[in-house]
Protein backbone atom coordinates (compact mmCIF):
# COMPACT_ATOMS: atom_id res chain seq x y z
CA UNK A 1 0.00 0.00 0.00
CA UNK A 2 2.81 2.32 1.01
CA UNK A 3 4.59 1.43 -2.19
CA UNK A 4 1.55 2.19 -4.31
CA UNK A 5 1.20 5.59 -2.66
CA UNK A 6 4.80 6.44 -3.40
CA UNK A 7 4.30 5.40 -6.97
CA UNK A 8 1.20 7.57 -7.25
CA UNK A 9 3.07 10.49 -5.70
CA UNK A 10 5.80 9.95 -8.28
CA UNK A 11 3.27 10.15 -11.09
CA UNK A 12 1.79 13.34 -9.67
CA UNK A 13 5.24 14.98 -9.36
CA UNK A 14 6.15 13.95 -12.90
CA UNK A 15 3.01 15.39 -14.40
CA UNK A 16 3.46 18.62 -12.40
CA UNK A 17 6.76 19.38 -14.19
CA UNK A 18 5.89 21.76 -17.04
CA UNK A 19 6.25 20.11 -20.41
CA UNK A 20 8.99 21.37 -22.72
CA UNK A 21 7.68 23.84 -25.25
CA UNK A 22 6.62 22.22 -28.49
CA UNK A 23 8.07 23.00 -31.90
CA UNK A 24 6.80 26.28 -33.34
CA UNK A 25 3.87 25.65 -35.73
CA UNK A 26 4.41 26.80 -39.36
CA UNK A 27 2.01 29.74 -39.10
CA UNK A 28 3.95 31.19 -36.15
CA UNK A 29 7.47 30.82 -37.60
CA UNK A 30 9.12 34.23 -37.71
CA UNK A 31 12.39 35.19 -39.31
CA UNK A 32 14.89 37.07 -37.14
CA UNK A 33 14.20 39.93 -39.57
CA UNK A 34 10.79 40.55 -37.99
CA UNK A 35 12.43 41.19 -34.59
CA UNK A 36 14.76 43.93 -35.93
CA UNK A 37 14.43 47.71 -35.84
CA UNK A 38 13.37 49.53 -39.00
CA UNK A 39 16.95 50.82 -39.52
CA UNK A 40 18.43 47.33 -39.59
CA UNK A 41 15.60 46.10 -41.81
CA UNK A 42 16.30 48.93 -44.27
CA UNK A 43 19.96 47.94 -44.33
CA UNK A 44 19.09 44.37 -45.31
CA UNK A 45 16.44 45.39 -47.83
CA UNK A 46 18.71 47.65 -49.90
CA UNK A 47 21.32 45.66 -51.81
CA UNK A 48 23.51 48.75 -52.12
CA UNK A 49 23.54 49.26 -48.33
CA UNK A 50 23.67 45.60 -47.24
CA UNK A 51 27.32 44.85 -46.35
CA UNK A 52 26.60 41.16 -46.98
CA UNK A 53 26.47 42.04 -50.68
CA UNK A 54 30.22 42.78 -50.55
CA UNK A 55 30.75 39.12 -49.64
CA UNK A 56 28.36 38.07 -52.42
CA UNK A 57 30.44 40.09 -54.93
CA UNK A 58 33.64 38.46 -53.67
CA UNK A 59 31.92 35.08 -53.93
CA UNK A 60 30.96 35.73 -57.53
CA UNK A 61 34.60 36.49 -58.35
CA UNK A 62 35.65 33.22 -56.65
CA UNK A 63 32.93 31.31 -58.52
CA UNK A 64 34.54 32.34 -61.79
CA UNK A 65 38.18 32.05 -60.67
CA UNK A 66 40.16 29.00 -61.77
CA UNK A 67 41.75 27.11 -58.90
CA UNK A 68 43.69 23.96 -58.05
CA UNK A 69 45.68 21.47 -60.10
CA UNK A 70 42.83 20.93 -62.57
CA UNK A 71 42.69 24.70 -63.17
CA UNK A 72 38.90 24.69 -63.18
CA UNK A 73 36.49 27.24 -61.76
CA UNK A 74 33.15 26.48 -60.15
CA UNK A 75 31.55 27.97 -63.26
CA UNK A 76 33.39 25.53 -65.56
CA UNK A 77 31.27 22.66 -64.18
CA UNK A 78 28.22 24.42 -62.72
CA UNK A 79 27.79 27.20 -65.28
CA UNK A 80 25.55 30.10 -64.46
CA UNK A 81 25.01 30.08 -60.69
CA UNK A 82 21.68 31.88 -60.99
CA UNK A 83 20.38 28.73 -62.72
CA UNK A 84 22.45 25.86 -61.29
CA UNK A 85 22.54 27.09 -57.67
CA UNK A 86 18.95 28.28 -57.45
CA UNK A 87 17.28 26.50 -54.53
CA UNK A 88 20.45 24.68 -53.44
CA UNK A 89 20.88 26.56 -50.15
CA UNK A 90 17.21 25.89 -49.38
CA UNK A 91 17.74 22.12 -49.13
CA UNK A 92 21.15 21.91 -47.43
CA UNK A 93 22.59 20.25 -45.35
CA UNK A 94 22.05 17.35 -47.78
CA UNK A 95 22.83 13.65 -47.50
CA UNK A 96 26.10 12.63 -49.10
CA UNK A 97 25.87 9.00 -50.21
CA UNK A 98 29.60 8.17 -50.43
CA UNK A 99 30.24 9.66 -46.97
CA UNK A 100 27.03 8.29 -45.47
CA UNK A 101 26.22 11.48 -43.55
CA UNK A 102 24.86 14.97 -44.26
CA UNK A 103 27.17 17.78 -45.37
CA UNK A 104 26.46 21.51 -45.24
CA UNK A 105 27.22 23.95 -48.06
CA UNK A 106 30.60 24.88 -46.61
CA UNK A 107 31.62 21.21 -46.53
CA UNK A 108 30.22 20.68 -50.03
CA UNK A 109 32.35 23.55 -51.36
CA UNK A 110 35.47 22.13 -49.73
CA UNK A 111 34.65 18.61 -51.02
CA UNK A 112 34.28 20.06 -54.52
CA UNK A 113 37.62 21.82 -54.14
CA UNK A 114 39.31 18.62 -52.98
CA UNK A 115 37.71 16.19 -55.45
CA UNK A 116 37.20 18.23 -58.60
CA UNK A 117 39.55 21.21 -58.45
CA UNK A 118 42.33 19.39 -56.58
CA UNK A 119 42.71 22.53 -54.52
CA UNK A 120 43.33 23.05 -50.82
CA UNK A 121 40.14 23.46 -48.79
CA UNK A 122 39.12 26.88 -47.47
CA UNK A 123 39.45 27.28 -43.72
CA UNK A 124 36.30 27.49 -41.57
CA UNK A 125 34.97 31.06 -41.38
CA UNK A 126 37.60 32.23 -43.87
CA UNK A 127 36.69 35.19 -46.00
CA UNK A 128 36.73 33.02 -49.11
CA UNK A 129 34.46 30.29 -47.74
CA UNK A 130 31.96 32.82 -46.38
CA UNK A 131 32.00 34.73 -49.66
CA UNK A 132 31.34 31.66 -51.80
CA UNK A 133 28.65 30.41 -49.41
CA UNK A 134 26.99 33.84 -49.42
CA UNK A 135 27.07 33.93 -53.24
CA UNK A 136 25.53 30.45 -53.50
CA UNK A 137 23.03 31.24 -50.73
CA UNK A 138 21.88 34.41 -52.46
CA UNK A 139 20.81 32.40 -55.52
CA UNK A 140 18.08 30.87 -53.31
CA UNK A 141 16.80 34.13 -51.91
CA UNK A 142 13.03 33.91 -51.48
CA UNK A 143 12.95 30.13 -51.94
CA UNK A 144 11.20 28.04 -49.26
CA UNK A 145 13.41 25.85 -47.07
CA UNK A 146 12.97 22.12 -47.72
CA UNK A 147 16.02 20.73 -45.86
CA UNK A 148 15.51 17.40 -44.15
CA UNK A 149 12.86 16.11 -46.59
CA UNK A 150 15.25 13.38 -47.77
CA UNK A 151 14.36 10.17 -45.86
CA UNK A 152 18.03 9.24 -45.53
CA UNK A 153 18.41 12.29 -43.29
CA UNK A 154 15.81 11.20 -40.72
CA UNK A 155 18.26 9.83 -38.10
CA UNK A 156 20.41 12.97 -38.38
CA UNK A 157 17.42 15.30 -38.02
CA UNK A 158 16.46 13.25 -34.93
CA UNK A 159 19.99 13.65 -33.53
CA UNK A 160 19.84 17.40 -34.15
CA UNK A 161 16.47 17.56 -32.41
CA UNK A 162 17.91 15.67 -29.44
CA UNK A 163 20.76 18.20 -29.22
CA UNK A 164 18.30 21.08 -29.49
CA UNK A 165 16.31 19.72 -26.53
CA UNK A 166 19.34 18.80 -24.41
CA UNK A 167 20.28 21.05 -21.50
CA UNK A 168 23.95 21.94 -21.46
CA UNK A 169 26.57 24.27 -20.05
CA UNK A 170 26.93 25.89 -16.64
CA UNK A 171 23.63 27.72 -17.18
CA UNK A 172 22.02 24.35 -17.94
CA UNK A 173 19.92 25.63 -20.80
CA UNK A 174 18.78 23.86 -23.96
CA UNK A 175 18.24 25.70 -27.25
CA UNK A 176 14.53 25.01 -26.85
CA UNK A 177 14.31 26.87 -23.51
CA UNK A 178 14.86 30.20 -25.27
CA UNK A 179 14.00 29.59 -28.91
CA UNK A 180 10.81 27.53 -28.56
CA UNK A 181 9.72 28.56 -25.09
CA UNK A 182 10.55 32.26 -24.75
CA UNK A 183 11.00 33.74 -28.21
CA UNK A 184 8.44 36.48 -27.62
CA UNK A 185 10.43 37.84 -24.66
CA UNK A 186 13.63 39.80 -24.16
CA UNK A 187 17.04 38.95 -22.77
CA UNK A 188 18.50 42.16 -21.36
CA UNK A 189 17.53 44.69 -24.05
CA UNK A 190 17.61 42.32 -26.98
CA UNK A 191 14.66 40.31 -28.30
CA UNK A 192 14.99 36.54 -28.04
CA UNK A 193 14.32 35.29 -31.54
CA UNK A 194 13.13 31.89 -32.71
CA UNK A 195 16.66 31.01 -33.79
CA UNK A 196 15.65 30.53 -37.42
CA UNK A 197 18.53 29.75 -39.81
CA UNK A 198 17.12 31.32 -42.99
CA UNK A 199 19.62 34.16 -43.58
CA UNK A 200 23.07 32.57 -43.32
CA UNK A 201 25.79 33.38 -43.90
CA UNK A 202 24.78 36.73 -42.54
CA UNK A 203 26.30 40.08 -41.73
CA UNK A 204 26.16 40.70 -38.00
CA UNK A 205 26.63 44.26 -36.85
CA UNK A 206 28.01 42.88 -33.58
CA UNK A 207 30.69 40.95 -35.48
CA UNK A 208 31.27 43.72 -38.03
CA UNK A 209 31.65 40.85 -40.45
CA UNK A 210 30.01 37.91 -42.17
CA UNK A 211 29.57 34.71 -40.21
CA UNK A 212 28.09 31.25 -40.68
CA UNK A 213 25.25 29.54 -38.85
CA UNK A 214 27.91 27.47 -37.08
CA UNK A 215 29.59 30.61 -35.74
CA UNK A 216 26.20 31.79 -34.46
CA UNK A 217 25.49 28.44 -32.79
CA UNK A 218 28.95 28.49 -31.20
CA UNK A 219 28.38 31.93 -29.72
CA UNK A 220 25.03 30.77 -28.28
CA UNK A 221 26.79 27.75 -26.75
CA UNK A 222 29.51 29.95 -25.29
CA UNK A 223 26.71 32.14 -23.94
CA UNK A 224 25.26 29.27 -21.89
CA UNK A 225 28.86 28.40 -20.90
CA UNK A 226 28.88 25.07 -22.67
CA UNK A 227 31.75 23.57 -24.65
CA UNK A 228 30.94 24.69 -28.21
CA UNK A 229 30.87 22.02 -30.94
CA UNK A 230 33.79 22.15 -33.36
CA UNK A 231 33.18 23.62 -36.81
CA UNK A 232 31.96 20.89 -39.14
CA UNK A 233 31.65 18.23 -36.42
CA UNK A 234 28.86 15.64 -36.92
CA UNK A 235 26.80 17.08 -34.04
CA UNK A 236 27.19 20.62 -35.38
CA UNK A 237 25.91 19.58 -38.83
CA UNK A 238 23.07 17.58 -37.24
CA UNK A 239 22.02 20.66 -35.27
CA UNK A 240 22.22 22.82 -38.42
CA UNK A 241 20.11 20.23 -40.24
CA UNK A 242 17.49 20.15 -37.48
CA UNK A 243 17.32 23.97 -37.42
CA UNK A 244 16.76 24.01 -41.17
CA UNK A 245 14.06 21.31 -41.01
CA UNK A 246 12.46 23.27 -38.12
CA UNK A 247 12.30 26.28 -40.48
CA UNK A 248 10.56 24.25 -43.20
CA UNK A 249 8.82 26.55 -45.69
CA UNK A 250 10.47 29.79 -44.55
CA UNK A 251 12.05 31.95 -47.25
CA UNK A 252 15.85 32.18 -47.58
CA UNK A 253 17.10 35.76 -46.92
CA UNK A 254 20.84 35.30 -47.56
CA UNK A 255 22.77 37.54 -47.06
CA UNK A 256 20.74 38.71 -44.06
CA UNK A 257 21.75 41.57 -41.77
CA UNK A 258 21.32 41.01 -38.04
CA UNK A 259 22.16 43.16 -35.02
Amino acid at each position, binding site marked *: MMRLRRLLLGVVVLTAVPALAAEIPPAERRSGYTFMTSDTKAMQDDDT*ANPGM*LAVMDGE*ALWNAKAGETNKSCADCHGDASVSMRGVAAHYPAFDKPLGHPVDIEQRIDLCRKDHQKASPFANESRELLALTAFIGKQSRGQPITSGDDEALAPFVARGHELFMQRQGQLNLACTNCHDGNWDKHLAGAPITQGQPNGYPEYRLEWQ*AMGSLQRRIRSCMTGVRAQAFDFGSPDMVALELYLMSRAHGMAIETPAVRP
Partner: protein
Amino acid sequence: MASALVNVPPKAKKGAVIEIRTLMSHIMEPGYRRTAAGDLVPRDIITSFSCRFNGEEIFRADLFPAIAANPFLSFFTVATESGKFEFEWIGDNGFVANASATITVEA
Protein backbone atom coordinates in the same frame (compact mmCIF):
# COMPACT_ATOMS: atom_id res chain seq x y z
CA MET B 1 39.46 41.32 -52.47
CA ALA B 2 38.64 44.97 -51.96
CA SER B 3 35.27 45.71 -53.46
CA ALA B 4 32.94 48.68 -53.48
CA LEU B 5 29.24 49.04 -54.05
CA VAL B 6 28.37 52.40 -55.57
CA ASN B 7 24.83 53.55 -56.23
CA VAL B 8 24.36 56.56 -58.53
CA PRO B 9 21.10 57.10 -60.43
CA PRO B 10 21.86 56.39 -64.10
CA LYS B 11 19.61 59.26 -65.24
CA ALA B 12 18.44 62.53 -63.68
CA LYS B 13 16.70 65.76 -64.66
CA LYS B 14 18.88 68.86 -64.80
CA GLY B 15 18.77 70.62 -61.42
CA ALA B 16 17.45 67.57 -59.56
CA VAL B 17 18.91 66.65 -56.16
CA ILE B 18 20.37 63.15 -56.36
CA GLU B 19 21.60 60.79 -53.67
CA ILE B 20 24.89 58.96 -54.04
CA ARG B 21 25.55 55.95 -51.84
CA THR B 22 28.81 54.09 -51.42
CA LEU B 23 29.71 50.97 -49.48
CA MET B 24 33.37 49.99 -49.21
CA SER B 25 34.70 46.64 -48.07
CA HIS B 26 37.23 47.25 -45.25
CA ILE B 27 37.87 45.79 -41.78
CA MET B 28 38.43 49.23 -40.13
CA GLU B 29 40.63 47.79 -37.37
CA PRO B 30 40.75 50.64 -34.83
CA GLY B 31 44.21 49.94 -33.39
CA TYR B 32 43.06 49.77 -29.79
CA ARG B 33 42.25 46.07 -29.61
CA ARG B 34 44.57 43.37 -28.31
CA THR B 35 44.98 39.73 -29.26
CA ALA B 36 44.50 36.91 -26.73
CA ALA B 37 48.27 37.11 -26.16
CA GLY B 38 48.03 40.80 -25.26
CA ASP B 39 49.66 42.23 -28.39
CA LEU B 40 48.13 45.37 -29.86
CA VAL B 41 46.45 44.80 -33.22
CA PRO B 42 47.87 47.55 -35.43
CA ARG B 43 45.50 50.16 -36.78
CA ASP B 44 44.21 49.49 -40.28
CA ILE B 45 41.51 51.92 -41.35
CA ILE B 46 40.41 53.98 -44.32
CA THR B 47 41.50 57.54 -43.58
CA SER B 48 39.99 59.47 -46.48
CA PHE B 49 37.22 59.27 -49.05
CA SER B 50 36.68 61.61 -51.96
CA CYS B 51 34.29 61.94 -54.87
CA ARG B 52 35.10 63.85 -58.03
CA PHE B 53 32.65 64.75 -60.78
CA ASN B 54 34.20 65.36 -64.20
CA GLY B 55 37.53 65.93 -62.47
CA GLU B 56 36.28 68.39 -59.86
CA GLU B 57 36.07 67.36 -56.20
CA ILE B 58 32.48 67.55 -54.93
CA PHE B 59 32.67 65.61 -51.66
CA ARG B 60 35.36 64.58 -49.20
CA ALA B 61 35.30 62.83 -45.84
CA ASP B 62 37.95 61.95 -43.28
CA LEU B 63 37.44 58.64 -41.48
CA PHE B 64 38.54 57.74 -37.95
CA PRO B 65 39.02 54.59 -35.85
CA ALA B 66 35.52 54.73 -34.34
CA ILE B 67 33.88 54.17 -37.73
CA ALA B 68 32.46 50.67 -38.21
CA ALA B 69 33.76 48.10 -40.66
CA ASN B 70 32.67 48.39 -44.31
CA PRO B 71 31.97 52.16 -44.20
CA PHE B 72 28.72 53.25 -45.83
CA LEU B 73 28.68 56.87 -46.96
CA SER B 74 25.80 58.65 -48.59
CA PHE B 75 25.58 62.25 -49.73
CA PHE B 76 23.57 64.51 -52.02
CA THR B 77 24.49 66.62 -55.00
CA VAL B 78 22.71 68.54 -57.76
CA ALA B 79 22.67 67.05 -61.26
CA THR B 80 24.11 69.73 -63.53
CA GLU B 81 25.45 67.87 -66.57
CA SER B 82 26.15 64.39 -67.84
CA GLY B 83 29.46 62.97 -66.72
CA LYS B 84 31.43 60.62 -64.57
CA PHE B 85 31.72 60.30 -60.80
CA GLU B 86 35.05 58.98 -59.57
CA PHE B 87 35.38 57.66 -56.04
CA GLU B 88 38.59 57.09 -54.13
CA TRP B 89 39.23 55.50 -50.75
CA ILE B 90 42.68 55.89 -49.16
CA GLY B 91 43.82 54.16 -45.99
CA ASP B 92 46.56 52.66 -43.84
CA ASN B 93 49.15 50.24 -45.22
CA GLY B 94 48.97 51.80 -48.68
CA PHE B 95 45.28 50.98 -49.15
CA VAL B 96 43.82 52.60 -52.28
CA ALA B 97 40.56 51.65 -53.95
CA ASN B 98 38.71 53.29 -56.82
CA ALA B 99 35.29 53.08 -58.37
CA SER B 100 33.36 55.13 -60.91
CA ALA B 101 29.83 55.63 -62.19
CA THR B 102 28.30 57.66 -65.00
CA ILE B 103 25.15 59.74 -65.06
CA THR B 104 23.10 61.07 -67.95
CA VAL B 105 21.47 64.43 -67.22
CA GLU B 106 18.43 65.33 -69.30
CA ALA B 107 17.17 68.87 -69.73
